[in-house]
């Protein structure tokens, strides 16, 4: 119950933030650099798959959970 409330609070907080920043296209110099991208870089993908199968944990940061692993 506590955990559910925390998740809702987190989601609500971020949703609340959506209205507070409008960066114009000509102000996005820093944001457009490769290092600011929110996705993992290409070479991180393989590591994510290793983490998924070595740790019995998945999700929340990319990765997949099915389709076999090639890990035994």
């Amino acid at each position, binding site marked *: 119950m506590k955990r559910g409330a925390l998740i809702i609070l*987190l989601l609500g907080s971020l949703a609340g933030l*959506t209205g507070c920043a409008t960066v114009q296209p000509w102000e996005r110099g820093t944001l457009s650099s490769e290092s600011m991208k929110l996705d993992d870089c290409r070479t991180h993908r393989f*590591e994510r798959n*290793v983490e998924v199968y070595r740790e019995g944990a998945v999700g929340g940061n990319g990765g997949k959970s099915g389709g076999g692993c*090639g890990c035994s």
Partner: protein
Amino acid sequence: MQLRALASRLLAGALVSVGPALLGQAEPEGRFDADILFSYYSQDGDHSPVTGGIGTEELEVVSPVVVLAWRVDEKMTLTADIGIDQISSASIGNIQMELGGASIPASDTRTFGTFKAKRKFGNQTLGLTLGAASEYDYESFSYGLDWAIDLNQANTGIAAAIRRYDDAIDLIGIDGYGSQGPGVPRTEGKGDRTTTDAVFTLSQTLGRRTAGSLELFMSQQEGVLSTPYHEVILISDSPLYPDGKHVAERLPDSRDRKALGVRLNHGFTDGFVLRTGYRYYEDDWGIASHTIDLETHFRLPTDREMWLYPILRYHTQTGADYFGLPLTFTGAEDYYSSDYDLSEFSSDKYGLGWNLFTLPNESWLRYVDRFEVRGTFYDRDDGLSGFTTSFSFGSTF
């Protein structure tokens, strides 16, 4: 004053619109990206599940992948990932030895392909994914749909994706062949496993130098979730098993998993970016975990966009309810496993990465438009250690 501000806004807007054209980016139609990704992973430890939680976990994986992306027109993109993993491990040797060698290959090959089609409809994008993978003991087919929308002048993004995997598994039991009794999973013949993943993502620009995202992940698995060639060493009073009785692991036939991930990237300067991530995970097998990712990206003083970054990651998890050390189960329990991936542990990862991106109409070493390399060491407090390196290079035609 107001007129001046308006003029500068209009000029800046025009530059944003025309700039890419001047740099050769305005005509994405027909553009074709080709990237080659090569990864290597090695690990060793002393808790192999194939030998009941004792014995070497030595494993090597070599994974070349080709990634192709064709921007058919301004709205449509087709991508394909095709790869062949080559896996050699002590486990395969152990399984072969127990089975007499003939039933499985000397080393494992995993072949996979994923194909995606994405189309833009105004500020929305719809995508379709199809995938297949094959290994000596399973075949997998997957399909999925994804949707995304850009709002607030692309400062807010909302995305949702659903993907299903249908796996057919050859059950290879090295202990406890066939039926193990009423209501107990079979360890020979064929079995099915289905996995349905759903992901909801909210990404938000939080300022000129800050961006963040929140990802909620839910996954439901059903079918054969135990691995028949994973052994458990049971306590036994029988003189037939003086060192314990070896049987196949037993795990439930369903698993619900949930995770919540938060990312926050902040550029302190144009040459120093901090990338952070936190994830909370839990499932109905009793595992709960916390993971922190940290990367500090330093831009190198060159004409091209080049970044060097140290990598840190910390993970801690509770163990599954069904995990136990060798010689702790009696066999009377409903479920049992000595797979240390399901145990309680903490792990650290540290490494270094380097990325290079050329300017449009320019290349590096004549043909390369982008290059990435990273290497990490992995340490788990149960003694497992690993090393991963990946590099990728690509060109746009």
